[in-house]
Each structure stands twice: as C-alpha cells, then as structure tokens.
C-alpha cells in the first residue's frame, strides 16, 4: 500500500511539474466565475411554462393576454409553448407578437383601437427589457394598466454559462490548432514567425480557389474541401521551404520565417487584391460554426482530435522522441542516429500546414477570406506555447501544456471583456501574464531560488 501511494505521489508531482499551469487556469476560472455573477433567467419553453404558471395564478379569469417574443429560435419556442399553455389554461390569447418593438407597438395600438386591449403581456426576458414594455404607461398611456409577466431570475456567473464556455473555446480554436505545430518547432529550439501570415494566405487562397475554380457561391461540398486542402498543402510547402532554409543553409529560424511571413502576407494581399473574398457558399460555415456530437461545435472536436494525435505522437512514438532530442542537443542527437534534418523539415511542414488549417477554420467562421486575417497571431501562438511551459531554448515542453496555455489566454481575454476592462488595458494585462508565466517557468527550473543555482 505504502509503495502504491508513493508511486501515486510521484505521478502527481510529475503531473504538477508538467502541467502546473492548470492551477492558474482553474484559479482564473474561479475568479471570473465570482466576478461575473449575474442575474440569469430561463429561455425558450422552460421560460414559457414558468410565465404561464405565474399568469394563471395572478391574472383574473376572463382577461386576455398578449404574447411577446423577440427574434430568434429560443423566442419562437417561447411563443409557441406560451400560446399552447395559455389555451390549455383557458386564458384568452389576444395575439402573438414575434419580432421587434415596433411590431408590438403596432399590435397594441391596433388592439386598443379595436377595444380589445390585453390585460396582460407575457414576454421573454429580452422583450421585457425593451423600453416600450418597461415604460409602457408613458409611451402608450392607453395600455398603462397592463400586467407584464416575464421569466423569474436567478443568480449564476455569466462566465459559466454554456454559450460563454463555448465562446471561450471558439475564440481560441485557431490559435490552439496553430500552437500544436509551434510547440513542435519550439521544442526543436526553432521558431516560426510566419504562421499569422499563413493564416491569411490560406484563407485567401481557399476562398479564391472556391471563387475562381469551384464555382463560387454554387461550389459543391467536395469542391470546397478540395480547395481548402489545397490551401493547407500550400501552407505546408511554405513550411517545408522555411525548414530547408534552416537545415540546408543554416539560416536562423527567426530570419527564415520572418522572410516567409512577409512573403506570405504580400502574396495574400496580391491574391485578394486587398479585398475580402466572399463569393463562397454560405454552407462553408459547417466547419467553423456547425455542431455535431452532443451539440459540440465541430471546431472544438477538430481541436480535441488534433491535440490527442499530437500528444500521442510526441509522447509515445520514436518521431516524438526525435523531436525532443533534436531540440535538447542537436549534435548529440545527430551522433546517436537521429535524422535531425528530416525532423526539422517535418516540424516546419506540420507547423505550416496547421497554420493553413487555422486559416481554413477562420474562413469558415467568418464565411469569407481576407488578407487582414491572422494579424499578430504568431505572437499569441508563441505566447500560448510559452505560457504552456515549453522552453524557448528547446528540448522541453508538452503539447497539452500548450492547450492549457491557449485556454489561459482565452479565459483572460473573455473574462476581461465580460468584466468590462478597456481594450488597451487588456493588452497590458495579457503582456504581464505572459511575462509572469515565463518567470514562473524560470524559477521552477532553478528550483525556486531567486539567484543562480544550477540544480533543480
């Protein structure tokens, strides 16, 4: 038993050493959950049942009620359910307004003129927030006596709402995907500055191909997939080119990829003639905005699959060990038979192709491709990798650490928007967080001593 516990303790310590940043992520989540505690209310049919029950209790029998809902799917569900509920309860439904405040105003004036002014309004919470309903006595004095029923509220953090958690994942998906390739490049002690431009290049190339070769807005699904694959392959080739510069000519990775960054960005602007390309089928958003399994967004599933594959590759295969060996000590790796050059070519190709995939995802999310995409993304990607604990000097790092790093950045950005921090201040905070993460990493390497010390 004791031995078992000791092993578990060692595994726990290793986990903390590898993925210590997960506590930062959890603490950030807890913090933003508290900071965004807010009034919430049910929507859709649940809201309708609650409001109908309330109405049955408090509305004198014989009075007519008007159902009001804003635009959107939840709102239509509410209206349908409320109408059915009222009819079942024997309350007269004066009408159903689906739409905007002016539609309600017209309906109220029409009902008023016909002498059938409703005694109650059953509204979705969104509609109840319209000034027309909140100040109904002032705006339409004829309707001043009307009772308004809307869903009851409860308190719950904005941050922890399902659609916000999905939004957090959605905002980071492009950066997280590209960061997989960047982690591998950085583990070989390299860097790839061209990924941001490659996102733009891939987006422009994919949309341009769809527009010019696959039939523009009438392109078939297969055509779109082919065009997107072509864009991804092209980005992979750019990656191979950077890799060749690094291996064959010993150009420092920083310089080689800086050059490719300019080339890719310039090509993207040229291909797109500086404009965004939008002549693509609307169904191109299947990947970026669609959902599949359990209503999870496709982008999230794609990201999860890529991370699992990359994690297994880096931790369980010879190729993964070669990548670490190349970054740890290139000469030693070469002498012990690691095909160093091919490993480096491979990581730059993967990084380029994943940047291409990132561009395709972005295209799909925005239903268009423009050369302005991916601006500064290389820096966010590198930040995610470094915050995730990968050392810029090579040889060390974990793929899943990068995922945590990406989520830390996404949570901070989302949380700052939810708590209303100005956009200038946001950059300052993000910069400080990245610095703090790297400092933490350095301290960890030194065994938590502020000065010197080689032993860890």
């Amino acid at each position, binding site marked *: 038993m004791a031995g078992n516990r000791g092993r578990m303790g060692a595994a726990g310590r290793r986990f903390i050493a590898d993925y210590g940043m997960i506590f930062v992520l959890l603490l*950030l989540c807890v913090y933003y959950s508290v900071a965004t505690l807010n009034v919430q209310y049910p929507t859709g049919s649940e809201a309708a049942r609650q409001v109908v029950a309330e109405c049955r209790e408090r509305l004198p029998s014989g009075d007519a009620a008007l159902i009001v809902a804003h635009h959107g799917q939840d709102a239509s569900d509410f209206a349908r359910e409320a109408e059915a509920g009222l009819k079942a309860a024997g309350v007269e439904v004066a009408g159903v307004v689906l739409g905007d*405040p002016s539609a309600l105003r017209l309906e109220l004036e029409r009902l008023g003129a016909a002498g059938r002014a409703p005694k109650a309004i059953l509204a979705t919470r969104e509609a109840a927030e319209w*000034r027309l309903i909140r100040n109904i006595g002032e705006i339409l004095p004829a309707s001043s006596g009307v009772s308004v029923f809307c869903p009851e509220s409860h308190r719950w953090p904005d941050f922890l709402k399902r*659609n916000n958690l999905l939004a957090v994942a959605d905002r980071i998906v492009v950066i997280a995907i590209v960061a997989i390739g960047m982690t591998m490049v950085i583990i070989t002690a390299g860097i790839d500055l061209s990924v941001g431009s490659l996102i733009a290049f891939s987006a422009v190339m994919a949309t341009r191909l769809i527009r010019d070769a696959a039939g523009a807005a009438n392109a078939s699904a297969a055509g779109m997939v082919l065009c997107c694959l072509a864009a991804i392959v092209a980005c992979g080739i750019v990656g191979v080119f950077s890799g060749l510069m690094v291996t064959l000519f010993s150009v420092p990775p920083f310089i080689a990829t800086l050059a490719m960054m300019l080339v890719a960005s310039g090509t993207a602007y040229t291909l797109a003639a500086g404009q965004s390309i939008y002549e693509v089928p609307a169904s191109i958003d299947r990947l970026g905005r669609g959902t599949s399994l359990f209503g999870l967004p496709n982008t999230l599933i794609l990201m999860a699959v890529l991370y699992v594959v990359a994690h297994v590759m880096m931790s369980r295969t010879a190729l993964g060990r070669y990548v670490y060996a190349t970054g740890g000590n290139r000469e030693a790796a070469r002498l012990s038979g690691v095909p160093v050059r091919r490993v480096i070519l491979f990581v730059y190709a993967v990084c380029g192709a994943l940047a291409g995939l990132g561009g395709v995802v972005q295209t799909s999310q925005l*239903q*268009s491709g423009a050369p302005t*995409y991916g601006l500064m993304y290389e820096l966010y990607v590198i930040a995610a990798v470094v915050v995730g604990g990968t050392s810029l000097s090579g040889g060390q790092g974990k793929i899943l650490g990068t995922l945590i790093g990406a989520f830390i950045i996404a949570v*901070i950005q989302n949380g700052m928007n939810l708590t209303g921090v100005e956009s200038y201040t946001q950059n300052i905070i993000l910069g400080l967080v990245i610095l703090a*993460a790297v400092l933490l990493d350095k301290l960890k390497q030194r065994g938590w001593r502020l000065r010197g010390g080689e032993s860890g």
Partner: protein
Amino acid sequence: MKKASAVLLVLVLTVSALTGCKKRETQPAPSAGPAAAKAPTGKVEGKIGISVLTLTNPFFIDIVKAVEDEAKKNGFEAIVTSSEFDPAKQRDQVKDFIVKKVNAIILTPADSKAVGTAIKEANEAGIPVFTADIASLAEDAKVVSHIATDNYAGGRQAAKAMMEALGNKGKVAVLDFPVVESVILRTRGFEDELKESKSPIVIVGKWNGKGVKDEGFKVAQDILTAHKELDGIFAINDPSALGAYAALEKAGRAGKVVLIGFDGQLEGKKAILEGKIYADPIQFPDLIGRTTVQTIMKYLDGAKVEPQILIPPSLYHKADAEKDPALSAK
C-alpha cells in the same frame, strides 16, 4: 511545492487585482409584475455594446465618447471594445456582448463582409444590431439601421470648394483610396459635381494614397513630378492631404497648388487654420454617435426607424477655423 503554490497565488492575485478593477454591473431586476415607472437617474436601464474598427483614430474615439455620453443620458451603460482591424476579434467581442445580454449592439465593421457571421449570431440571440460609419455588406445579416456621414454629398462639397478656390479652371489630381466604400462615394461625389456643374476643371488622374500620411506623401511626390501644371489636389482624408502637403513643401510648390481634404480631424483643422489646406468637408463623428444611440432608443420604444440615416458634412474654411473653440484652446 509550498513555494510553488505561493508564487502561483501571487501571480493569480496580481492578475485578479488588475482585471477586477472595473465596475461591477448594477443589473436592474424588474420584478414580474406591472412595468415599473421610468428608472430614476443613476440606475442602469440597460446596456449597449459597441465594437469599433480601431481606437487609434480620433474619429472613432469621438464616436465612442458621444455614444457613452448619450447612452448615459438615457440611463444606459455603454460597453466599449475595439476590433483593431481584426474581424475575428470583432466576432469574439459580439459573442461576449451576447453572453452579457446587451440590449443593442453598435458595430463599425472591421470587414464589411466578414462581419456577417457575427451579426447573424446577434440576430439569432434576438439582439438588434446597428452600424455606424461603416456599413455591413453581408447578405441575410439583419442590421436595424446604418448611421453614417453622407460621403457622396461631402464629395460634392469638396468639388464646390475646389471650383471656388481655383476660379473654376485648371487641373486637379485626386488622392484616392478606392477599397473603402465611403471613400469611393466621396470620389464619385467629387467627380459628379464637377461634371454636372459643367466645370472646365480637368481631373488629370486618381492615385491611391491609401488614406495614410506616408503613402500620400510618396504618391503626391510622383504626381507633382508627372504634372508640372497641377493646380489642385483633392485628398480623400486629412492624413493623405497632410502627406500631400509635405510633398508640396518639398517640391517648393506649397501655396501654388490648392489642397482640399476631408474629415475635419483636429490636425486637419489646424492645417486649415494655417492655410495649408484650403477647406475640408467635415464629418461629425459625435453626431453619428449620438444619432446612433437616439435611433436605438427609438427602436427600443417601438417606433419605426429608417434603415439608413445619413448625416450631411459641412464645408469648413479658414474663417471657420479662426472661430473654432477646439483650436483656440491652445
């Protein structure tokens, strides 16, 4: 490990202190009952989310200030964000507005087409979207109303100023930026006015100054080299006009070539005061901001609103600059 946890804690506390410094929202919680009377001042009636193109341009800062001010007057709180030219970032900001359940969203799109998916998501969540200054060109994305400067009328005013300054004769060049819809309208207004008033002024050509100072400077130098007889330049905004002025100075032709700008930013107004620019059709960003919020209020009250509201610019000469309190302050 104790030290490790201590460092982590310090890090997180620092982050929390920095990020948590902003106000907590005061959410009104109207009870389910008869609608309450108009909220007393100081109580937040609702929220408006705004995402602008950039906050590095004073034009958008003026719009944002006016929106904040006008929203406050109506008891609303404005949540200000900036896309800084990144359409993906703008979409994230709109998603955050949806989570916060704002009552309305104002956008100046970072990309007139790519903004479509963000607007559609707001549409699905039942939040009305308004655009200010830059329109959305995305299909089936519903925008309640677009509020902007009447750029076409402004272009016509610029042509009138040019005719007046040159005594209705001579050769002019246009420093263009033909990828932006509003600029295309300015140039078209300028050309149409000259054509319709049968002016003998000849447009020798249009060059792309990209709407920025350095590019305007480079292009204007080439124009001046190519056209020794040039009498006037119409630049589609103040930065490119000021770039052109630097080129005129360098060529020793300042004062001999009439310069007309557009916008009426502070820097441009100063140049008009100093006689560097002859006149500007000036825009009213504060009016755009105010009108947008007023339109939102009208919409929330249930009144009909126009799908497009154009704010006419007005010509601003040296005489106006001499009386302008914004310039005499210093």
